[in-house]
Structure formats: C-alpha cells, structure tokens
C-alpha cells in the first residue's frame, strides 16, 4: 500500500478504532476501558505498553483475546504482542486489569480502587491500634 496517503490512512484507522471501542469484540474496547478507568490519555497508554502512539489504532483493531481463564488467552496475547513489539506480560496485565475493572459492578476507577483498598487496610490497622490504645489503662 505504498501509494496510500499516510495521513489519510492514519485518520481512517483512528476513526475505525474509535468506532471499534464500542464493540467488545475488539481490543479497542479494552484499551478504552483502561484509559477511562485510569484516566490515561493515548500517550500514557502508549508509554505503558512501550509502543509508538501511531501503532495504537492498529492494536485497537485486533480481536480482543478471550477472557484470562481461557486456554487460548496466552496464545492470542502472544500473537498480538509479537505483531506490535509489545512485551506479552504488559499486554496480558493490562487485559486482566480491564477484565477486573469490568467485573466490578460498581465501576470504581482502578486508581481509586487501589487507593481505597489501601485506605481500608490503613483504616482497619488504625482502628485496631486505636482500640488497643483505649483498652490500655
């Protein structure tokens, strides 16, 4: 496709990726869910996956690997990772994180979930300490 206009090609792929983000079939849906959950922009997403931003649209148009429990998950992640030069572990972690987020019915953002879990642990620990202190004579 050497005679393609690169800017036009990039625009079309970006448009297709945006439309694909509404369909769970495509990787785009997982990338968009991750972006929203972590309040990350495209550059941040590319940094996390260690790929060029220009490759994100093509990555988004891949089929989203089936859930992490499936036997084919590793193989599919590997195929996508190889195609785009991503570390398979990074891609797998992102997909698992998104699956976890999507499973959370309350749809709490991932960052807030982590913060809240930490706070709850802290709070519990503080409560115990506080209660121990009050029991002391």
């Amino acid at each position, binding site marked *: *496709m*050497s*005679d*393609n*206009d690169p800017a*036009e*090609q990039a*625009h*079309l*792929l970006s*448009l*297709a990726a945006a*439309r*694909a983000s509404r*369909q769970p*079939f*495509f*990787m785009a849906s997982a990338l968009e869910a991750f972006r929203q959950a972590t309040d990350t922009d495209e550059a941040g997403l590319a940094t996390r996956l260690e790929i060029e931003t220009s490759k994100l649209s*093509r*990555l*988004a*148009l*891949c*089929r*989203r*690997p089936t859930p992490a429990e499936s036997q*084919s998950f590793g193989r*599919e992640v590997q*195929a*996508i990772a190889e*195609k785009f030069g991503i570390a398979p572990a990074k891609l797998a972690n992102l997909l698992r994180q998104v699956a976890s987020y999507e499973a959370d019915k309350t749809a709490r953002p991932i960052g807030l979930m982590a913060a809240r879990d930490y706070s709850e642990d802290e709070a519990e620990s503080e409560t115990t300490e506080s209660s121990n202190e009050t029991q002391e004579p």
Partner: protein
Amino acid sequence: MASNFTTRPNRNRELSFHQRLLAGDPVAPSELAEEYLYHLSNHLKLKFPKADSAIRDEAAADACLKYASQPESYNPAQRSLWGYLKMSAEGDVRNAQAKQRRDQFRFERLVKFEGVELFTADGNNTIEEDFLMQEELTERIINLKAKTRSEAEAIAETALDQTLLHLLQAGVRRTEEYARILQITQLRPAEQKRIVKNHKDRLRVRLKRHLSRKPPPPEK
C-alpha cells in the same frame, strides 16, 4: 495485493484473510482494516462524491468492522471479498443519506406546521410570547437534529456551551439552573435573566447556522 484497487485484489489473499478471521486470528481484523480501509474510503469518494466525507469514512470503517467481527456473514462462493466490502459500505452510505434527508424533511415540516418562521418574531406576539415560542421550537429542533454528541459539539464549541446545550436538550427552562452553570447567582435576578437570555440567544444563532446546512441530494 495490488496497492491500487482499480485492479482486482488477489483472490488467494482474500481467502486467506477470510480463513484467518473464521479461525479467530486476533491480528487479522487489524490487518484487514490496514489493507482495505483506505481503498474502501477512496472507492466511496468516487461513488458518492457529494456525500459528507464523515459519512463515507464511517461507512468504510463499519464495513471492515462488521466483516471482521462476523466473517461468517460473507460467502466467498458468491462474490469477492472486495466486492462484499464495497456492497456493505455503499449500503451504509445510502442509509445514512436517506436518514439525513428524512431529518431534513421532518425539520422543514416542523417549521411549516408550527406556523412560525424560525427564530423570527411575527410582530403580533409579546416579546415574552415570542421568546417562549422560539424556546420551545428550539428545544424540539435540538432534540430532533442534535441527537449525537458530535452534532452537539458542532453547535457548542466550549465545555460551558455544551453544558448549556445539554440543559436546553433536557428541557430545563428555569433561569436559576443556567445561572448556576454560568456562576452568576450572586447577581440580581433581572441581571441573571438578561445574561442567561444572551447565552441562549447566542446558542440559537449557532444552532441556526448549523441547521441551515442542507443535506446533500441523493446519489445513485
């Protein structure tokens, strides 16, 4: 495959794509889009030169996405993949154009049956009556025409205007609601009303400009 799609694409490569999609190859949809999307868009440009470029590009994208996610809907024995994608995209363009014409027709009929010249006082009503009539008409037209987020954004360029437009779309009429968004609740009520009206009028002018764009005539 030939880079110029004026020649028939390689049949074996088409079949290879189809088999990979049926087998669930995760990177096949991306490669399909990379290979066909650009040429599909160019084909639609030639076929529907007067259609909005956005309609053409979305139709090209949707044709690729639909096929990639439902490859079993294509029967290689009936036609080539390139022919199938063209047919799918052309159908989407025609549907989108028909919808555009229907919306335009509804809009014109609405204005005609309301007996109101859009955004123009007829001289027989009080200013308040004209204002209310225009406001109601505006809301109905907004709901009719600005259904999608992109259209709303075309009318309201700033986040503030988008919020005001959403209030209009939601049928909110109370000045207090708009004043709160505009952060002018500390002003006297009359002053608040005047400022809110100015903002609504400004949005109406944008709306009028947006709606005055004629849809393209049907193309064969």
